[in-house]
């Protein structure tokens, strides 16, 4: 398996501006990300996620996410499920406020005391879930995830090789297959691993690349040949770049 970044939990907050509970979701998420579990969590930017941010979507496909929503419309949880996979856990601010008997939450821009308390309670719940998720799933995912960070993309690769903008570090690469551009998750890490293992371009390597890439990306059977051709071409380019430094 290629080396992928250390396992973390993605936090998706709805951040709804028009409701105070939306602000609570944002404040709670940032409290976890900045203060309580900065090394174990990454933010998944909901607008970027909705707009097709591959890095953020890739992260949510690999790693567990906790969705924090202001209200029952659950935009963050629904978006995560729609584009990546069901969140490992979902918290709704109005539920937390009701369970704890908090007074009315007011102040979308500046939260009142009940809002501040709600943010603290939600943040505590997220921390509990993060700890549980990292402990519970570490063994299952552990084999595929090493503790070493993936090397950053070089400037030459910048246009096609990217890392998650939220900082999670999942590498993705854009490749042209049958005339259309597709984004392949983990491909830069796969190439790097093959190169380090001394595998040079050739039919056997291409077959192995196809199988490894398939683990992380859906490859339709009818397009296998086109994907193989694209992988062979890109890996040859990758090896040339590495050889010339």
């Amino acid at each position, binding site marked *: 398996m290629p080396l992928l970044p250390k396992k973390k939990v993605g936090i998706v907050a709805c*951040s709804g501006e028009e409701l105070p509970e939306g602000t609570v979701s944002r404040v709670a998420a940032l409290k976890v990300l900045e203060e309580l579990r900065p090394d174990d969590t990454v933010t998944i*930017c909901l607008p*970027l996620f909705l707009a097709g941010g591959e890095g953020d979507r890739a992260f949510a496909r690999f790693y567990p996410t906790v969705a924090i929503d202001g209200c029952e419309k659950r935009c963050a949880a629904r978006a995560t499920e729609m584009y990546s996979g069901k969140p490992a856990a979902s918290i709704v601010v109005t539920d937390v406020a009701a369970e704890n008997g908090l007074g009315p939450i007011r102040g979308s821009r500046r939260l009142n005391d009940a809002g501040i308390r709600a943010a603290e309670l939600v943040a505590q719940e997220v921390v509990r879930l993060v700890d549980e998720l990292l402990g519970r799933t570490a063994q299952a995912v552990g084999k595929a995830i090493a503790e070493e960070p993936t090397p950053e993309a070089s400037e030459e690769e910048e246009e096609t090789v990217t890392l998650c903008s939220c900082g999670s570090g999942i590498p993705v690469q854009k490749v042209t297959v049958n005339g259309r551009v597709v984004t392949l998750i983990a491909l830069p890490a796969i190439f790097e691993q093959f190169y380090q293992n001394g595998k040079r371009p050739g039919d056997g390597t291409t077959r192995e690349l196809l199988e490894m890439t398939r683990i992380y990306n859906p490859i339709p059977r009818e397009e296998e040949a086109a994907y193989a051709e694209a992988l062979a071409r890109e890996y040859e380019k990758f090896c040339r770049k590495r050889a010339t430094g």
Partner: protein
Amino acid sequence: MSEKVVVIPCSGIGKTFGTVSREAAYAVVEDLRPDRTQLVALSLLVLGDEEARAAVAGHPTITIDGCRLACATKMVQESGLPVARSFTVLDAFRKHRDLKPEGISALNPEGQQLACALAKEIAEAIDALQEEA
């Protein structure tokens, strides 16, 4: 002058500029043009919430994006709704390079000033849109 203008910030949570977009939106709808504007959450709109779509339909819409990825503008357009004017914090920052915004959960004073400067620019655009209407 009767038609309300809808304001949709990106509110990106990963970068300071996202928070500036959010603060600028609040400054417009709460301080500068409270009776003539309405905030709509981007995610509600994108996920097809009927109420959010109804709020935007038929009203001039202004988007505020933190960065050049322009998520708010793109997503409103992809939802099949027109964007009357779009602003980015990045452009505002280029006009006010003396202001260095910092912080995501809490903006520093310079970030607040940048949000105010952007909000003033947006308020002028709202006036122009409403005069045109």
